[in-house]
């Protein structure tokens, strides 16, 4: 819009004001969008800032004379400062290691020992409760190269622990996988079958309409209520073990069922009716049409919906807290009946811990969870883009 010619016979004085107002409106709308994207950026930045340090861990070089006496009392052979630098978890594990390597006995071995959470925080420049004397000692070690960072493998390969530097995400990852297997094997087949029945077979009567309204409502019910259902029916009535991947998975399956049904129905609906009519014209039965001509083009849409629903279930915490999946689980669950914890529940438990080291672990856990979820969603979107047919 160029400058308005005020000598124009059609000039209306309010016009400039109106245009200014319109411009303002546009900028307000734009800034709202920018604000919401800024939230996302700030959020992601904050998670990375807090979580990245947890992927490295301080290790300190020490020499240990492996003798019977030292193994019996692993706290004895270190001086006062080193005791507060080296992790208790590592010292406790030393006799086990020595037992695994009997040839060590009587020799002096050099170890890169895991450092305690407080000295780890000091190395990373965070808050800590170390005494100044110990801090000086760490500085000395740093100069001589006897203390260094290594990639934190403990985080990925051990379970939860009450000792912060020894706590890992492994049991939560395994628990999440087991729970998701239960959820997937229940919710996906039942959901898709329900959608096929409602969309292809059910007569359009009052009952079917009631069922559809019902499913739409279920999709919007607060997730915590599914936890109440799991507690009252699965645990109390059927006696499924509390905190197990089975009960968690069944609860999440009920939660993701309506979402899977709704998206599968949409996928079936997008297959044009002419295909079905052509099938009938050739004398096929309904099931033959559905199996051979409706399901193949609808499959990508159904898969996408299922993946998105499962990703949502994977990040869900509230119903799992209700069915007891926030127990302290140091070892990974081996079957679906033993006590398990899942990634979001582990995040919740760690976030309530007072030690600073756990906050770092929480953020790192969040990064792991988010990357899994974003990958799942990206796969779903890719499938949708690649295979969706436009008729």
């Amino acid at each position, binding site marked *: 819009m160029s400058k308005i010619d005020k000598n124009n016979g059609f000039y209306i004085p309010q016009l400039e004001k109106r245009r200014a107002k319109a411009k303002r409106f*546009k900028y307000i709308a734009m800034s709202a969008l920018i604000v919401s994207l800024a939230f996302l950026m700030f*959020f992601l930045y904050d998670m990375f800032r807090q979580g990245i340090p947890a992927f490295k861990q301080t290790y300190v070089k020490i020499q240990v004379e492996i003798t019977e006496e030292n193994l019996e009392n692993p706290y004895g052979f270190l001086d006062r400062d080193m005791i507060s630098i080296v992790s208790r978890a590592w010292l406790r594990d030393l006799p086990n290691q020595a037992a695994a390597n009997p040839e060590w006995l009587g020799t002096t071995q050099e170890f890169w020992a895991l450092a305690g959470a407080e000295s780890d925080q000091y190395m990373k420049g965070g808050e800590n409760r170390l005494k100044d004397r110990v801090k000086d000692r760490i500085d000395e070690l740093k100069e001589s190269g006897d203390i260094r960072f290594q990639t934190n493998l403990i985080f990925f390969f051990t379970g939860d622990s009450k000792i912060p530097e020894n706590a890992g995400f492994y049991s939560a990852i395994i628990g999440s996988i087991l729970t998701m297997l239960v959820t997937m094997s229940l919710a996906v087949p039942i959901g898709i*079958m329900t959608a*096929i029945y409602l969309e292809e077979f059910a007569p359009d009567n009052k009952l079917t309409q009631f069922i559809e*309204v019902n499913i739409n*409502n279920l999709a919007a019910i607060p997730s915590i209520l599914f936890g109440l259902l799991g507690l009252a029916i699965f645990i109390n009535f059927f006696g499924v073990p509390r905190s197990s991947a089975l009960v968690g998975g069944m609860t999440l399956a009920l939660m993701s069922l309506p979402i899977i049904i709704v998206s599968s129905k949409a996928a079936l609906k997008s297959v044009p009716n002419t295909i079905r009519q052509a099938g009938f014209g050739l004398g096929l039965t309904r*099931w033959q049409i559905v199996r051979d001509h409706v399901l193949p083009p609808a499959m990508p849409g159904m898969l996408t919906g299922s993946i998105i629903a499962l990703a949502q279930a994977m990040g869900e915490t*509230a119903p799992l807290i209700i069915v007891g999946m926030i127990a302290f689980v140091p070892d990974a669950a081996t079957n679906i009946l033993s006590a398990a914890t899942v990634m979001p529940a582990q995040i919740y438990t760690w976030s309530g811990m007072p030690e600073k080291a756990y906050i770092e672990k*929480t953020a790192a856990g969040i990064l792991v969870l988010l990357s899994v979820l974003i990958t799942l969603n990206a796969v779903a979107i890719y499938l949708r883009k690649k295979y969706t047919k436009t008729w």
Partner: protein
Amino acid sequence: MSTQSLYLIFFGGLLPLMYFGYILGRNKAITIRTKGIKMHSQPDQYGWFSALYTGLPVMTVGVVGVFSYLFGFDGIPPFMLIVTALSLGALSLFLISKKMNEHTRARNLVEEFIKGILMMAAFISILTTFGILISIITEAIHFFQRESFWGFIFGTTWDPDTAFLAGAGRGGEDVAEAKFGAIPIFAGTFYITAIAMLVAVPIGLLSAIYLSEYATTKTRDRVKPALEVLAGIPTVVYGFFAAITVAPLFVDLFEAFGIQASYRSALGAGVVMGIMIIPIIASLSDDVIKSVPNNIRNGSLALGMNKAETIKFVVLPSAMPGIIAAVLLGISRALGETMIVVMAAGLRPNLTWNPLEDMTTVTVKIVESLVGDQEFNSSLTLSAFALGLVLFVVTLVINIISITIIRKFHKKYKVSNL
């Protein structure tokens, strides 16, 4: 005998039996056909018919058996049950192979079988609704048998701490009675929801307007996935964000003005909840605004209104029902949101207007009363179900209203992609 070997025997018997049924049925059909007799269906359909109806009695007995064990009838030893099921299957296989002839409508019978299985799946999905209703209502009734209903709805003190004493049989004259007045909890819930909506509605709606009316296709394609990421973030992560980052930020901010704020303030939880709801409102309103027909816009532009005026006076009023529905869905999400408030709002029921104090919500109380080592039928545990019932009813009503509005809106503009 262990459960695993029982399953092994069951499926080890069932699957070969069905496979045998398939071979038998198909071979018989082929034999009949080679005689030149006209048949109703194709040979493999006879095979499927024979296999499925061999398996049917076996599976029926199996499922009935499993459920009767779950409900506590264990009169028959499981091994006997499996043997019965498998011999029934063998019997039906025998009958089928004997009776099957060219008049058997195998194709239709297979069709009926599959329809039946699909119907069962649909039935299970419906059962969920009733499962929620029944489980919550029965436990809530247990609660209201002990505590007064009106005291729960209108009472202003929530002090259940002594309930466990009564549960342990140590209740008496000297122990103060537990009070279950839920008003402060409802008030906290609605207050935090209101704060969340104050954040989410303007930002979400304006973002939707910009995306659907102003943004170029390129911007849209880039921004929409970002909003989807925002919508896909688990709530426990938002909770951590609220508790660790946002709450201290607010405390520092208000400290600068000399105002004391709690680390578990309603404001912090509400604002983060609002951020969580922005993408929900934005994407729903975006769909609605885009479905307003273009000729309405063109008519308004032809009358000399500029773009902003068209949006404000023509597009938004037409889209209003859909926008209201989107906001209602956002409200029901906020009411039922759990992790953010558990991690960032308080535990103390607190009846106040000050958003900087800690407050609690229905969902926090549900979690709190179910996490401890309480006896299942203590009043405290049951109170969770009473609160859950209230939550269920409120969100259900809101959802029904918003779904009805959306449906009407789509009927009006003849679009059906929602």
